[in-house]
């Protein structure tokens, strides 16, 4: 076995280009599905807060489905299963516009929305009901009490869980390779196939993922510290 030589990968423009393109795709998939997940999670939470039993049951069913079916199976179901039901016009359009990445973003986003909405809900749950009563007694309206009293506290309580699930969303973006998205894990495998330098290639891929995940965790820790009210222990 030859000795460790990272430059054999990093100094070759073709390999460097493949890895950079893969990393870019990972960021695109992770960021878009995060945005989709967070907006959908807020919608789900609002639906769940309405007094209707049916709405609550529907959201609960959504969350239960997405938490109990493996993420990879959901992606495969979207890419191979649900796509086959679309009208052929939509299928053609998707075929020209990177269908793999689109379905990966939809699949990951819908799945993670279930986790995010549960995080937000338990953030809201952890506030004592007296807070809402007090805000109303002080003259806040429904919206204003939510805006100034409840939501800031709920977000603060939900922050650690949201950060954890953001990290796992970032890690799960690697599952997109199974449906053929050319993201970082896919690129790592390609480079390994062509360069025959398995150890170096995997090491580079691992370090990139690790750096991003640890930065996300550090960012989360910093946000939590900042979000603590003055004087809180």
């Amino acid at each position, binding site marked *: 076995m030859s000795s460790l030589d990272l430059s054999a990968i990093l100094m070759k423009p073709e390999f460097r280009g493949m890895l950079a393109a893969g990393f870019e795709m990972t960021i695109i998939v992770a960021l878009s599905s995060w945005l989709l997940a967070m907006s959908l999670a807020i919608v789900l939470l609002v639906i*769940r*807060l309405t*007094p209707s039993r049916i709405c609550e049951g529907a959201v609960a069913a959504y969350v*239960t*489905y997405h*938490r*109990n*079916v*493996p*993420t*990879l*199976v*959901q992606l*495969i*179901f979207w890419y*191979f*299963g*649900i796509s*086959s*039901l679309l009208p052929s016009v939509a299928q053609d359009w998707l075929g020209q516009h990177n269908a793999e990445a689109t379905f990966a973003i939809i699949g990951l986003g819908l799945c993670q929305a279930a986790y995010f909405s549960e995080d937000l*809900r338990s953030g*809201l*749950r952890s*506030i*004592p*009901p*007296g*807070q*809402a*009563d007090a*805000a*109303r*007694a002080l003259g806040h309206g*429904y919206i204003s*009490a*939510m805006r100034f009293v*409840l939501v800031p506290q709920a977000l603060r309580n939900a922050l650690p869980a949201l950060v954890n699930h953001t*990290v796992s969303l970032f*890690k*799960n*973006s*690697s*599952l997109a*390779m*199974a449906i053929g998205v050319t993201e970082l*894990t896919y690129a*790592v*495998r390609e480079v390994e196939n062509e360069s025959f330098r*398995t*150890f170096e290639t*995997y090491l580079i*891929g*691992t370090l990139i*993922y*690790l750096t991003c*995940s*640890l930065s996300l*965790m550090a960012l989360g820790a910093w946000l939590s510290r900042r979000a603590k009210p003055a004087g809180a222990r």
Partner: protein
Amino acid sequence: MLTEIYQIVSDNWLLLLIGQYPNGPLGGMAATMLLSLLGIALAFPLGVLIALARLSPFAALRSSATALIYVMRGIPLLMVIFWVYFLVPLLIGRSVPGFVTMLCTLVIYEGAFLSEVVRAGIQALPAGQIDAARALGHSHLSAMRYVILPQALFNVLPSIVSQFVSTIQETTLGYVINVPELTFAASQINNRLLTKPFEVFLILAIIYFCVCWSLTQLANWLERRVAARRAGPQATVSPAARGPSATRLGDVAREVGK
């Protein structure tokens, strides 16, 4: 569509259940369950060891356990699979089947995650427990063995079942390195039929849902049992018994709190 689903299941139930077993490697649901059960069973002792290392008085042990946990938390499972796929044959000098690759991966990955579960269980115990054990003449390890771990492991039982559900979900990644398990069996059926991807993968999702949902219910039931036992015989007042709130918003907060 229902008749098509019925048709697919009645034609392929054996493949979904055990793969091509008598004529080939064990696959399907049986392989998925075997892989997850072995994975969690082997990861559990490893997890306890890592948790003990993380709480040990020796800085070297502590920092290496912490480093291992952060690496596992920071990289996707697929990267771990690739590493094991590459390193295990190098270390033992011969190639191994995909099942073994996946098992090794799950043991390492789940070991790191279980260690965090176990550590949380140990740290949730009142500090007086370890002080009392030490005062009674137990060494650090013996206090862990006879006083702390029996209580902590009982308390984290529900989390271990949840982790088992995650393990079942993680076995699907074996699909990427062609481990014959349930997802692989479904994609075999899909490749044979070609025209019914929606039905085939819907069946797959339903099977995983049933298994994981039942186990999640088991975890919830265990959690109630453990909580009841920890709370002791004294009665507790539930939040719902506190009466209605003065305002609509308070009602919402209470509704959410249920």
